[in-house]
């Protein structure tokens, strides 16, 4: 039986290295964060074989003074922290002194660095933690770290790596986050002589987002801004129709550090509640500036997670700021919904530079936005599902059901006119006992929307005394029962305003369901379109599906060969 003994230092170091550096992407992240902490104005990253063969990170930062280079390669050697008090005031990205030594333990590392005050640069070569060479050479200010053969001495970890393509993609994804978190730093990422990502580092977040996500996405980003006491929230979020099937294009930046904070991300997503389909996620860059004492990044070795003080309050602010930002962009004609962009037409650079001018002043955005014009003229109804309409410029195909839903939702949501149309005789509705209990828990929200309910003694039976007047005159057969069943599901939502909105969404959906398949006369078609155009957000149903698509006649003619 093996005796218990203390591990040799190099083994301890190799194990600890795994906590910080688990794959090429995390290695690149550590090195780039060091570059950012060194006040670099540009960072150039090149890699081979997904970073497994080589990662080189070069910057023009303040470099490491000649006398400290060796120290920098020792574990827990850092320039960023000296005593406990500093832990409360961390403003740099790295601080533990773990990154460089950890990488040095598991790779063949070369560091070439020259501090601004030094005459010459220092070159150090380390292999598996052992220094092989240290020499003085001539080089410009800044630091270049080259990491070769990552994990060459820890085959177990190497075995966990995926293909070069996958690891390379992760590396770029990681660097993209950092580039968005530091728009004032120019990033260039290339592999095999191929430029993968470049940001110009002019400090404009929208420009950085355009570089990372593409021009077409950048066109659909709106700035968010909020400031209260010592917290500033800024960033970009996408308009509802510009969403993705995953959360990869969401980053939260706290005091310049790209972090994973599901609570804040979720708060921003909540702002889209009525506008996004389930399983669709907005693009977002949320930048928070808050006093260093409110942040504790010392939770996880990779610093990927941070703790924030008063996180619920912050989340509420993020939510409000996002709502405001999205509310401001209502009545802007969504380019992406037109036929032209559906065909893949790319917005011109001129469009983007216009977006630049808009900058971070949300008011400008609203006023310079193209307003939704007069409602188009109804042309016809197709299969009792769609309305065809046209104005001077475009042909519109309108989803009748979605239009009804949007109109009903806004009628129900308007705070200045919740009205309850009273019943001649209260309606009795029997639900499953559990559903009835859920509905009763929503009594206040329902009453606020115009539906007054009470329990009727026996289990599951309710009386309904009124309907929201927006629903009256439609139907009372299945409506009331279906509505209550749908509403019951909203009881589990904890946030009060969100609960109210869900209740109204359910009501709107019910009303629209009743109107489904209605054959509409010409005046009715027009009335529906007019009512839709009066809505605050006529382009999406409360579930976030688009209500219409428009086809500019120009592009129609183009497609039909009439240019």
């Amino acid at each position, binding site marked *: 039986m093996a005796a218990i003994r203390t591990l040799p230092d190099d083994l301890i170091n190799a194990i600890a290295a795994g906590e910080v550096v688990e794959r090429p992407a995390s290695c690149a992240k550590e090195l780039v964060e060091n570059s950012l902490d060194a006040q670099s104005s540009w960072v150039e990253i090149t890699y081979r074989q997904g970073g497994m063969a080589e990662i080189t990170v070069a910057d023009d930062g303040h470099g490491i003074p000649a006398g400290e280079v060796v120290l920098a390669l020792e574990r827990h050697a850092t320039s960023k922290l000296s005593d406990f008090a500093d832990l409360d005031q961390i403003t740099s990205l790295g601080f533990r002194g773990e990154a460089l030594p950890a990488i040095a333990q598991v790779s063949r590392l070369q560091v070439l660095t020259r501090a601004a005050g030094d005459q010459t640069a220092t070159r150090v070569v380390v292999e598996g933690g052992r220094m092989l060479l240290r020499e003085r050479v001539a080089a410009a200010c800044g630091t270049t770290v080259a990491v070769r053969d990552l994990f060459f001495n820890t085959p177990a970890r190497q075995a966990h790596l995926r293909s070069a393509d996958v690891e390379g993609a992760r590396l770029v994804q990681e660097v993209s986050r950092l580039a968005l978190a530091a728009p004032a730093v120019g990033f260039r990422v290339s592999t095999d002589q191929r430029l993968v990502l470049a940001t110009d580092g002019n400090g404009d977040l929208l420009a950085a987002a355009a570089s990372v996500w593409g021009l077409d996405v950048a066109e659909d980003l709106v700035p968010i801004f909020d400031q209260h006491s010592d917290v500033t929230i800024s960033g970009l979020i996408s308009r509802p129709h510009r969403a993705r099937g995953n959360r990869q294009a969401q980053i939260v930046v706290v005091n310049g550090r790209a972090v994973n904070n599901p609570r804040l991300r979720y708060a921003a997503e909540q702002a889209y509640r009525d506008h996004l389909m389930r399983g669709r996620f907005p693009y977002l860059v949320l930048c928070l500036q808050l006093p260093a004492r409110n942040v504790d990044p010392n939770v996880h070795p990779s610093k990927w997670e941070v703790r924030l003080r008063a996180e619920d309050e912050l989340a509420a602010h993020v939510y409000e700021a996002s709502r405001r930002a999205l509310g401001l962009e209502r009545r802007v004609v969504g380019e992406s919904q037109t036929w032209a962009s559906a065909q893949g037409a790319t917005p011109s650079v001129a469009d983007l530079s216009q977006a630049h001018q808009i900058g971070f002043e949300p008011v400008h955005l609203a006023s310079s936005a193209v307003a939704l014009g007069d409602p188009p003229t109804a042309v016809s109804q197709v299969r009792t599902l769609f309305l065809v309409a046209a104005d001077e410029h475009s042909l519109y195909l309108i989803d009748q059901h979605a239009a009804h839903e949007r*109109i009903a939702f806004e*009628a129900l949501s308007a705070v200045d006119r919740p*009205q*309850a*149309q*009273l019943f*001649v*005789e209260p309606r009795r509705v029997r639900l499953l006992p559990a559903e009835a209990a859920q509905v009763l828990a929503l009594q206040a929200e329902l009453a606020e929307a115009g539906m007054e309910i009470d329990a009727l003694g026996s289990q599951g039976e309710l009386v309904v005394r009124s309907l929201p007047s927006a629903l009256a005159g439609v139907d*009372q057969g299945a409506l009331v029962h279906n509505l209550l069943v749908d509403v019951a599901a909203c009881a589990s939502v904890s946030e009060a305003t969100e609960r109210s909105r869900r209740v109204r969404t359910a009501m709107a959906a019910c009303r629209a369901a009743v109107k489904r398949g209605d054959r509409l006369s010409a005046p009715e078609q027009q009335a529906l379109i007019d009512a839709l155009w*009066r809505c605050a957000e006529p382009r999406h149903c409360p579930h976030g599906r688009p209500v219409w698509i428009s086809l500019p006649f120009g592009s129609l003619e183009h497609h039909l060969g009439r240019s």
Partner: protein
Amino acid sequence: MLSFEIPASRLTEPLQLVLRATATRDLVPALTGILIEAQDDQLSLTGTDFDLGLRMSVDAKVTSPGRALIPARSLAELARRIPPASLVEVKAVDGKATMRFGKSRFDLPTLIDTDYPSVDFGADSQGEGKTLKAAALRHVLGRVTYAAAQRDDSLPILLGIKVSFNSDGHLEVCASDNFRLAWAQTTTEAVGLNAEVVVKARALTEMVRSLPDEDVRVALSERQMFFRSGSVQGFCQRVEGQFPDHRKLIKETYETTIQVQVADVIQAGERASLATDVRSPQVILRAGEDGVSLSAESAEMGSAYEDIPATWSGAPVEIAFNPKFLIDALKNAGAEAVDIGFNGPLSAARLHPTGAPDDHLALVLPIRRM
């Protein structure tokens, strides 16, 4: 094999009439047809959509007795266009009905007549039936039909009109979509009939419209209400369920009463409703020392104020209505002036013709403003 001859003038009108009862949607294809049965120099034309059934008999020269089920719409449309003076010869055999008149010949495909349901026009119940004037029925129904629910997916009972006969010849009808209620009564000759039924408003309206302007014999079975007048027979399917009881809703006294000219309020209401939000319309009626007014406002449409000439007594009141419900009630009041009673802003307003409170009344439920 069915074959008969008939002057076009005698065929057109019965076909138009029976057409009203045929189904417009082809859920049951056989019901989109008119069943023609011929025997003993008599044709019987039948249409039904289950809720309503109509049968009319006409004289014809039957050359071969039998029956055929012919698509109603094409048959009626064709019959309408045959010169009235022509003699039409109809022959139906092997899934095809051939119509000849003048120099024309038409072939219509027939439906499968064995799919047609057996329809009961109450021959057995007629013995217990009672006779009243069709005009009386039309009169009371004209006062209340508007208040019935319209949509197919409404609570079934609310699609109906409650018809009550009591043994001294009293006839009452009542309709309600649960947001408003209308009730009317009259005295008929149908003494001895004591029953209360609910039938679909749409069916009953079509039925009464199809009756000639003379005496109609009404009888009831467990599931249907039967009508017979001259050559027309019909039935309306009864609807099961608990109908709102207007008697519980009418109060002994009203805190506020106003008397207005119907035309004044309709016009004012129609103008005011232009200023309401169409998605959730409401007008506010105020009655008090300053007189009676209707007003409305919305963010998008502006606001309206209408002073209404009226007499007012009792307590001041401020109450909100869906303008459509108020205007519908006024339009169907059948009088030039009405009394409207209120018991505060959250109780039903009662409306009846001035001077004739027992003939007709309407209740309109208000909107609770929050």
